[in-house]
């Protein structure tokens, strides 16, 4: 891949044993990653986990302390930023305020002395539907329009690899959703490789072909969105990507197809192929939307796990669905989502309920539950808040 030439399709990116140490702080530790050409790859993770650093290493804005970076098979580890066939859409867009939109877009072409930069810039602007604003200055555009200019400015160079550092981070929710769709559409159309950094799990799930969940400078799990969601490998992933109800206990029996875990005296079954650990103490879990509420104890059936009885301690209506918090003695508080297919909640605060779910919907984590919780502070904030709230409620009730 030489500069001065357009990439006719995306190139794959390989990070081999990348390590980045800042004075007194290791931001990236032995990172290995392959992004297939032409894919939309999302790097997801909490604040400070090293996403931006990874991206800056790929862009050549930062030098790795160890490891190699290959783009389309060629080692670019020692190339300078302006020599790499890579472009970046910065979080703040970083549009040049002293140039018009058109000049911004043509900037990279001119630097590489590519013929007819203006016509090419216009084409790129047409792609993002902003050609009519070509002669404005960035300050004269709305946030969403600026985002599209930033995109055009990068895409016009047909880089083998396009890096996006939370390009939607600054937008409000509405605009963000709209931009997500546009980004995805454009990626599909031009067929480049996108490396998209975000800390918004919903964004990653709706946009990406592959998601890598990063934590503390390492990749925790990587795969297709649905796969990651359905079968998280660690507690961190289970809680970072959506919410989970997690239980810990010893494996008490194993059949050829499933394991049974004793959770405070209640037996919960997980299919063998969905359990990462099959003996000793394990953590297992189930997603809140997979749970069904019952107001009478469900009769035991082979295909379902049952927990209960518990008490509903909070019901919160949010339009599409209702969220229930159910306290089950000895086990803790479980979250249940129920789509509002009918009017009114399925259960009221204070009601005695049982919970059940299809055995096939449970999952078993790879984490060793005897380890100190590695990612305590990174727990989903909502969960923390819910836990806090329910403890408050308990206090009030006691008082």
């Amino acid at each position, binding site marked *: 891949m030489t500069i001065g030439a357009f990439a006719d399709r995306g190139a794959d990116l390989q990070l081999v044993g990348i390590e980045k140490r800042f004075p007194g702080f290791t931001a990236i530790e032995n990172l290995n990653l392959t992004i297939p050409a032409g894919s939309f790859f999302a790097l997801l993770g909490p604040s400070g986990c090293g996403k931006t650093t990874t991206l800056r290493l790929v862009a050549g*804005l930062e030098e790795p302390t160890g490891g190699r970076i290959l783009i389309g098979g060629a080692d670019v580890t020692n190339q300078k*930023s302006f020599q790499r066939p890579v472009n970046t859409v910065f979080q703040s867009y970083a549009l040049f305020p002293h140039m018009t939109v058109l000049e911004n877009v043509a900037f990279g072409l001119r*630097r590489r002395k590519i013929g007819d930069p203006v016509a090419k810039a216009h084409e790129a602007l047409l792609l993002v539907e902003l050609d009519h604003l070509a002669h404005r200055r960035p300050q004269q555009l709305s946030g969403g329009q600026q985002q599209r200019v930033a995109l055009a400015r990068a895409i016009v160079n047909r880089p083998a690899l396009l890096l996006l550092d939370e390009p939607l981070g600054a937008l409000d929710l509405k605009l963000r959703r709209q931009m997500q769709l546009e980004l995805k559409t454009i990626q599909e159309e031009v067929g480049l490789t996108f490396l998209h950094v975000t800390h918004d799990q919903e964004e990653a799930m709706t946009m990406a072909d592959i998601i890598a969940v990063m934590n503390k400078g390492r990749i925790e799990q990587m795969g297709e969105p649905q796969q990651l969601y359905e079968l998280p490998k660690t507690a961190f992933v289970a809680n970072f990507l959506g919410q989970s109800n997690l239980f810990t206990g010893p494996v008490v029996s194993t059949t050829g197809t499933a394991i049974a875990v004793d959770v405070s005296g209640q037996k919960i079954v997980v299919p063998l192929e969905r359990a990462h650990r099959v003996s000793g103490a394990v953590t297992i879990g189930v997603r809140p939307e997979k749970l069904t509420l019952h107001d009478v104890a469900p009769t035991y059936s082979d295909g379902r796990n049952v927990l209960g009885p518990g008490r509903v301690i909070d019901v919160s209506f949010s339009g599409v669905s209702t969220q229930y918090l159910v306290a089950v003695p000895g086990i803790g508080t479980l979250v249940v989502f129920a789509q509002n297919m009918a009017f009114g909640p399925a259960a009221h605060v204070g009601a005695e309920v049982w919970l059940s779910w299809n055995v096939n919907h449970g999952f078993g984590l790879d984490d060793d539950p005897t380890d100190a919780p590695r990612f305590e502070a990174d727990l989903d904030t909502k969960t923390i808040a819910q836990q806090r709230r329910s403890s408050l409620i308990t206090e009030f009730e006691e008082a």
Partner: protein
Amino acid sequence: MIPIGYTFVYSFNDSLKSNITWRGFTFDKWLNVCNVQNGAVCQAFGNSLFIGAVATVAATTLGTMIAIAIVRYRFKFRSQTSLLLFLPMATPEVVLGAGLAAQFLSLGVPKDMLTIILAHTMFCISFVVVTVKARVASLDPALEEAGRDLYGSAWQVFARITFPLLLPGILAAALLSFALSFDDFIITNFNSGAVTTFPKYIYISAARGIPAEANVLASAVFILALVVVVTVQVSGAAKARRLAKLS
């Protein structure tokens, strides 16, 4: 404002030598500014313009370099550097002027245009640093990174991104330098030797009455500045309105 009006009005005084008592209205002084006393007023004025221009260029260049270094790089003796930059601003002009004069004297440097320029450059540097520094600090480093990312070499990034973006700050600094230099009397008085600048001319003539021609020149500068500033502001306001309409 009153003294400015006074200066302006008396630039039309049909005075003889000293311009104290009102003797009638005339345009003569405006029309023949450079014709009295062998054009001494105009020469002094020209000297001031020249000194102001050279000192401004020198101070702006040196000061801008320092400002960029201070914001963008780490180096030893940071605090000492800051102190060195602050001190000239905290030193009264008499001390600056007298100190430099003493220095030139003991080195046997003749006092002329050059010594004035050297002195003016010295006290302007700090003001430039302060002005430009603010601009550098508010310059998002991501812009320069974007330049590099878009295939700009180090030099291209400086020439096409960094410099144009700093320009308003640099211009403001230059304007400030020029104003300070143009109006300086105290430091000039100590270091000018035989060269007469406009303020010095006025000071010297203060003793025997300022000719109306000085009022003419001063008023002319004032009006010119006023016109420039008003035009800039009005066109800026118009632009802002157009912008507002667009969005």
